[in-house]
Each structure stands twice: as structure tokens, then as C-alpha cells.
């Protein structure tokens, strides 16, 4: 009965969303790839130039630095965020008093947009740095990098924590009890039971943090703006700069070509990571 109704009416439920997906994502995506082979000022009025944009990606000497900085940033931030989020989740599933309040507090930063966070943290960190007599964020690539790490961690740990908490709550108490009866220590329970059992959460969280690290744009823009001299410029901001901060229509296509390379990079890394972590997932 239900199956027949669904068979008859599915287009009504699927088509609006599908149309939105095509208009809002699929079509711009395909058009964006086409644009990377073109020279243009506005996106409707383009001339095809073939692969020349791709050969000019390295022309302004800023791409490779941003590239490696982004790779380092994505890996460092993923590791830190996941480790910290996991331990906070562990602490908040022990049934201490006020657990719910803490969960809420840790999650809240996630609700604020990246641009706003960037400006707030800029004021905070600059205040601290100037008190310590250290160069401000936009003057020191090292401070800028650490600043971005702190900001991203503060923003994302809460979100990952929620995923880990859900995972930990799903670990069957039977298993833990059985292990305790067999004389397992807390450390053994953690490494032999809890972590293997929450590998699906680990897969999701590393995927999210890695891709977020690679794609980070608004926090970078508002916290350091790439200063000093592009030393703290991540790839997404580099693409934006190529597109907008240079004169001449040829740069739009080059920016677009960088964006396509960036997309392929993120997809490849995300696929490798998914394969690596999901192979460690165990069936209960």
C-alpha cells in the first residue's frame, strides 16, 4: 500500500530537491570546470583558451606556498581536533555532574559564523600578543598559523565531540562489563574495545576535519587575511585573491583553474582517508 503510493508520487517529493541540486550545485560545478578553460570577465561572456590557464597556475609564485601550507594545516588541525574532541567526549560520557551544560558550552562555538569568529579572535589574540610584546597576527606567519589553528579547534572540537559522544554511548555496556570481569584495565578497555567500536565515528570526524581544514576560507580571510605577504594564505584564499585582486581578465581563468586543481586534491585525499579508516571499522 505504502509502496504503491511512493511509486506513484515519488517525483513530487524528489524533483524539487533534485532541481535545486542541479541548479544550485551541479550546473555551477560543470560551468566552473568549463570556465577554467576560458578567459573571461563576467561568467556569461567567455572565450575558450584551452589548457593555457593550467600552465599559468605557477606563474605568480604564490600557489605552491599556499598549497603546502594548506596540506600542513589540514593535517595538523585534523589530528589536534580529533584527539581533543575524543578525550572531551570520553570525559563527558563518564556521568559527571553538569555534563549536559558542558556539552552545550563546547558545542556552541560551532553556531557562530567563521567571519565573525575570525574578527573576534583577531581582537583577542592581538590583545594577548601585544601584552606579551610579540608581533601581532598579521606580522608573523608563525603566530598567524597558530592563531588559525586555535580558532579552528575552538570552533570544531564541540561538533566532533558530539559525534564521538554518540559513538561512545552506542558501545554496548555488555562488552565493557565482560571485559571488566575478565580483568581488563581501563586502558585496555579504551584501546581494545571503545576505540575499535567507534571507528565509524572516527571515519566521519576525520573526513569532516580534513576537508574543513583544506577548504578553510572565511576564518583565514578575517583572522590574518593572508598577511604577512601571503605567508599565512591558505589555498582557498589564494584562489580568491587570484580571481579578484589582480588586473586583467586572464587572471579569472587562472583562479578558476586553481580551483579545479584544489577540488581534485580534496577529493583524492578524502577518498584515501575514507578507505584507510573505514577498513578499520569492525562489525559488532
Amino acid at each position, binding site marked *: 500500500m505504502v509502496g504503491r503510493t511512493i511509486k506513484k508520487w515519488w517525483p*513530487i517529493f524528489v524533483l524539487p530537491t533534485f532541481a535545486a541540486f542541479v541548479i544550485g550545485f551541479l550546473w555551477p560545478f560543470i560551468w566552473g570546470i568549463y570556465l577554467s578553460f576560458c578567459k573571461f570577465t563576467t561568467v556569461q*561572456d567567455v572565450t575558450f583558451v584551452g589548457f593555457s590557464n593550467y600552465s599559468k597556475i605557477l606563474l605568480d609564485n604564490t600557489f605552491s606556498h599556499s598549497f603546502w601550507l594548506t596540506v600542513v594545516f589540514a593535517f595538523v588541525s585534523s589530528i589536534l581536533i580529533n584527539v581533543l574532541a575524543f578525550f572531551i567526549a570520553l570525559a563527558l560520557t563518564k556521568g559527571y555532574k553538569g555534563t549536559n551544560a558542558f556539552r552545550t558550552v563546547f558545542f556552541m562555538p560551532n553556531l557562530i559564523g567563521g567571519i565573525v569568529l575570525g574578527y573576534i579572535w*583577531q581582537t583577542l589574540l592581538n590583545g594577548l600578543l601585544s601584552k606579551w610584546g610579540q608581533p601581532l597576527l*598579521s606580522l608573523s606567519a608563525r603566530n598567524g598559523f597558530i592563531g588559525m589553528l586555535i580558532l579552528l579547534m575552538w570552533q570544531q572540537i564541540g561538533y566532533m565531540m558530539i559525534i564521538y559522544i554518540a559513538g561512545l554511548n552506542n558501545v554496548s555496556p555488555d562488552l565493557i562489563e565482560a571485559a571488566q570481569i575478565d580483568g581488563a584495565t581501563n586502558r585496555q578497555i579504551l584501546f581494545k574495545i571503545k576505540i575499535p567500536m567507534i571507528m565509524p565515528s572516527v571515519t566521519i570526524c576525520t573526513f569532516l576535519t580534513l576537508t574543513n581544514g583544506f577548504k578553510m576560507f572565511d576564518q583565514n580571510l578575517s583572522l590574518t587575511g593572508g598577511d*604577512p*605577504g601571503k605567508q599565512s594564505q591558505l589555498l582557498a584564499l589564494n584562489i580568491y585573491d587570484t580571481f*579578484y*585582486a*589582480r*588586473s586583467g581578465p586572464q587572471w579569472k581563468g587562472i583562479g578558476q583553474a586553481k580551483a579545479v586543481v584544489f577540488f581534485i586534491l580534496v577529493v583524492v585525499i578524502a577518498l584515501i582517508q575514507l578507505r584507510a579508516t573505514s577498513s578499520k571499522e569492525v562489525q559488532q
Partner: protein
Amino acid sequence: MKMKKVTAMSMAVLMAASMIPSVPVMADGGGKVYYLNFKPEADEAWQNLAKAYTEETGTEVTVVTAASGQYETTLQSEMAKSDAPTLFQVNGPVGLKNWKDYCYDLTDAEITKGLTSDAYELKDGDAVDGIAYVIESYGLITNKTLLEKAGYSLDDIKSYDDLKKVADDIQARKDELGVKGAFTSAGMDGSSDWRFKTHLANLPIYYEYKEDGIDDTDAIKGTYLDQYKNLFDLYITDSTCDGAELSAKTADDSRNEFVNGDAVFYQNGSWEYAELSKTYSDDELAMIPIYFGVDDENEGLATGTENYWCVNKNASDEDVQATLDFMNWCVTSEAGTKSMAEDMGFTIPFKTAEAPTNVFVKQDAEYTEAGLTPVSWNFTTMPSEEWKNGVGTALTAYAAGTGSWDDVVSAFVDGWATEKALSE
């Protein structure tokens, strides 16, 4: 079952309806004008002027103002729409590079004939792609009351050496005078750094072009960078704050210091008048040239424009005509010229212009009458935003003590050559 069907249908209709964008109201017959305005500070005045024009002629005029610093990005996305701006602006020859394929040739337009000088035409070959619609000046805005309190008058400052002497003296006696410094903070935050990486950097370029008799170059020599350093040193030494803090200081910080009487000198332009006149009377304010130590006795205010109107040639013929009529009305009619002079505080380079009330603009005319040569705006030939950012970063690091002046020179000279080559 029936009920469910009805619910499902109505839900689907709702979902589909929410996806249809609101239909724009079309003007019946005749053209319409869509102006993408560059100056946020003049937004309100433009909206009023547009309304007045619609009331008078019936032509629909839409004015949209891009957020500060976002003009180029806004223009790019707006121009891709089917209802693209019919009137937009570029900032000079470098800005025109992106847009010359979109510019209607204004050679025969009525408004072009009204220009006071053909120097205000922005040309690409023989075609007039843009025309300047506002002339602005910048220099050192001075708080006369505080200057007199320190025992000086404007006549005491006639050269770089005078300026340094006075500023150093004020800085040394700042507690006694109740100020925090001679100059407002030279903020290097993105909202303020253009005052130094663009406006102050214009002076060494101006003198070098003048010496070489050119108006653009692929390779700047940096002949006058020492003077540039002297002035910047003065700004950061005789300042309200420590050089290391400048990277985070904003345009508002700097203006507030001037408004609160914490500093005597404030490098900025005639567009600040509207804001400053809320606090100060005309007698308390003056703008003096940025004495550069090269040709001080002849140097006037830096006067020019980076605001050129362009008409979108891809618009329909009626819209182009409506836009041309609107532009002409703005600079010739009584309501238009009055609004531009009084509400926006502009000096417009047209024969029909009203006398402005802006005290800085009046001063510029006085200086020119007294035989001083206005410094032209050559920063419109700077290679790209990238070049400006490079110089800005080097200046910030120099001010904070983490970078050397050599880095500034290298960003200025080497960066120029690199960026010019890249933008070809």
C-alpha cells in the same frame, strides 16, 4: 486517503512556489537606469536623487551601493546578470583593463561636452570609455585649534622640515598639550592601509613621473623613496601609538583620535569632511599639502579622481539612452548639481557645477589660485591590488620593527616590474 493526496499536492505546490524568485517589476516602455554606486558614504544622497529623478521624468532609477572594498566583486557578479548595471564605475586605466569590452563609447554623449577639461576623459584608444564625475583632494587634515594651542599657525608649516620640527615639538610636549601624539595612528588594517600604500605612495610616483616626463611606466625606479621613508617615519614616530600596534589599527581608530582631539594631523581626503564637520566648525579645520621635501614651495594638495563613470554597452538601446539622460541630468540640472555639491560634498568637473560647501575643496581652489601645483593622482597607474598589498605588508612590518625598509623598497620597485609584467 483523499486527504493525504490533497496535503501532498499542496505541499508540492508550496515547495515549487518557494523556488520561483520574485518577479522584478518592469518599467513600462522607455529605458531604465541601474547604477552600481562605489561610494557608501554617498548612498543616501544617491537614493534621494534617484527618487527625485523618477518623480520628475518617470524613468525608473535603481541605485545599489557595493560594500566598502567590495566594488569589483559586486560588479563582476552584477554584470553577469540579465538585468546588469547600466551605469558603473572604474578607478582609472588599470581598472579599465577588466571592463573596456563593456564600455559604451561616450565621445558623442551630451555629458562629455560639459566636462571642464578633456583630462577628465578616460580613453581607450580613441574611444572615451569613462568620464570622471568627482574630483577629490587629500592632504594632511589639521586641527587648527590644537596647532595654535601648541604655539604654531599654518604659516609656520611650509615644508617637510617645518612639518617635522612642529610635529616633533608637539610629540615632545604631548602631555602638556593634552594630546596623545602629533599624527593619528597610521593604521595598517585593511580599512586604513590604503592611506599609505596608495595615497602616500602616490607622491614618490608623482615626482618620479614628473622628473622623467612620463605618465605611466613598466619599471619604477624609486628615485624618491627616501622622502617616502622620511614621511612614513614621521607618521609612526610622532604617533598616538606604538609602531608594533599599527597592524591592527583601523580607519575608525584614526578618525576617532582626530575627532577626540588626541592628535593634530590626520592624513586623509576631502571625503572626510562630512564626518569631521559634525564635530568641528569650518574654522577649526584645514588641509595642508603632504610636504614631501622635493618641491615644497610649489606643492599643493593631491587632487584628482579615481571615479570614472562608464555606461554598459551591452544594455538595451533604451536603457543606454535613459542612462545617458540620467547622467547628464545629474551634472546639469539644479537638483542634481545641488545634491552633488551639498549632500555628497563633491566637486564635479562640469561647467554647470555648483560651488561646493566642503571646506577642504575650497582650500584646494585657494592653493591652486595662489600658484601651487596640485599633485596629480598617479596611483591609478599602480600595477594591481597585489602590488599595493605587497607594499602595505612591507610597510606594516617596517613600522612594527619586524621588517626592514629594504623590504619596502623591494616591494615597491621589484614588485612593480613583476606585477606590471603579470597584468599584461
